[in-house]
């Protein structure tokens, strides 16, 4: 991200913001609510355009992309939403095949939704097996537990075959033990598939335990960008306490 600025309403969320993430890198974004973590992730996914500056994905630029190029760029970035954003009354398999709709034409996508090929079904099954819910492939999503739905959302993003995986507060509403499982799973699959991983987190302990790079964000500014071992307690206190001033 190069000199990116973003304004929402009267509030300047980012001004002249810079961040570089290498391919295959795993980064945790931490910071208090309203720090701009979600906006940053959405800009990185091409979901909201920046007002100035540019977001580069490899050599490709979001700012100068045509609508068609933008679609294809978005298809290269997997996004795991806080509330999963699944279709509750569709089966797991149908939700997962949606991951690739951005790369498919209308007819191809319709076919994948209504009657996926055996090859597609096998691919979906393998991914579901990998996250431990292979037996849920034909279950309706709204019949699954919250944790299982989260895994479906992860598999949908993996099925997309992205270069990068972005996750917005994936453990905001789960218990601490499950939160460790989810973050462990995300970092593991990102490593296996050689994906760039950027995750926004509230839990600083999780960020330090699982991520080699932690970026502290507050009011649209980077407060620190360091390896967990180099993080000072004072930096963390400053990150959260200043907000109360």
């Amino acid at each position, binding site marked *: 991200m190069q000199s990116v600025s973003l304004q929402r309403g009267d509030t300047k969320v980012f001004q002249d913001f810079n961040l570089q993430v290498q391919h295959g890198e795993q980064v945790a974004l931490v910071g208090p609510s309203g720090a701009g973590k979600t906006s940053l992730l959405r800009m990185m996914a091409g979901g909201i355009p920046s007002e100035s500056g540019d977001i580069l994905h490899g050599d490709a630029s979001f700012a100068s992309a045509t609508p068609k190029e933008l679609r294809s760029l978005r298809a290269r970035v997997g996004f795991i*939403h806080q509330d999963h*954003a699944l*279709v509750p*009354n*569709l089966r797991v398999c*149908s939700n997962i095949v*949606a991951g690739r*709709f*951005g790369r498919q034409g209308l007819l191809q996508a319709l076919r994948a939704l209504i009657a996926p090929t055996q090859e597609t079904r096998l691919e979906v099954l393998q991914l579901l097996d990998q996250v431990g819910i292979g037996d849920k492939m034909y279950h309706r999503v709204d019949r699954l537990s919250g944790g299982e739905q989260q895994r479906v959302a992860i598999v949908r993003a993996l099925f997309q075959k992205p270069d990068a995986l972005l996750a917005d507060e994936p453990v905001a509403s789960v218990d601490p033990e499950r939160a460790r499982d989810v973050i462990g799973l995300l970092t593991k699959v990102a490593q296996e598939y050689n994906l760039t991983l950027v995750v926004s987190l509230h839990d600083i302990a999780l960020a330090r335990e699982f991520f080699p790079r932690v970026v502290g964000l507050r009011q649209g500014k980077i407060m620190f960008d360091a390896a967990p071992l180099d993080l000072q307690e004072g930096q963390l206190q400053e990150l959260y306490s200043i907000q109360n001033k």
Partner: protein
Amino acid sequence: MNHRTSTLFALFIAALWAWWELDLKFVDLFPTKGGAQIARDFFSAAWRPAIDYQSEFVPQGAPPFLWIVLQGMLRTIYFATAAMTLAVVVGVPLSALGSRLVPSWVRIPVRILVGGMRSVHELLWAIFFLAAIGFNSGAAVIALAIPYAGTLAKIGAEMLDETSDRAYHAMRGLGTGKLMAFIAGLLPQATPDLAGYAFYRFECAIRSSAVLGFFGYETAGYYLKSSFENLHYQEVWTWLYAFVLLVLFLEAWSGQLRRRFVA
């Protein structure tokens, strides 16, 4: 006078005005002496619905009365089914185009069109299409389909607007085209409600299809009208009972289908 009291007062004045304009008298709400006799004859026939023709002059070779009832009911269903199919084919895409997902330069003209379709009653459309196309089944089906498609489009658009668009936007975020994101992300969530409403409208279409008989189409209304005009009240009751049975059957069937959609 607060807002609620003034509204009630305005409604009361409007009611008084309407009664005065129509020169209504309280006594007009009760049947005349002759009318009371007709009502008595009619309602006493309710216990003895006809299982055969009431007329003594039945042409030789005429099919049995109950067979005619069955045929009349079937034709009622045929018209309603054909019209409802057309209404769904036209109404569902219009409901999508009338939803808030679509830019206002498309949505507003679509909503005006839909308003026009549903503001004219199916019987008025029937008069128009009978004159324009002539007396054939197509005119009746189109007359029924237009207002039904309009109503389906209006209610459908409201249902789509109330459906969570999280999955739709998530799919758009992956680069999915608008149409596909609508088909896969929004439509499945709205389908149970849409289907439930379409079934309810099908029941309404059955009733309207029966009334088309008054224009000469051989639906239940056609036979009902002729039985009534000939004062064959027992036959009338047979038709009415057959009709009630059909509607109850449809209600049970659609309820079962709705449960399956939701389950």
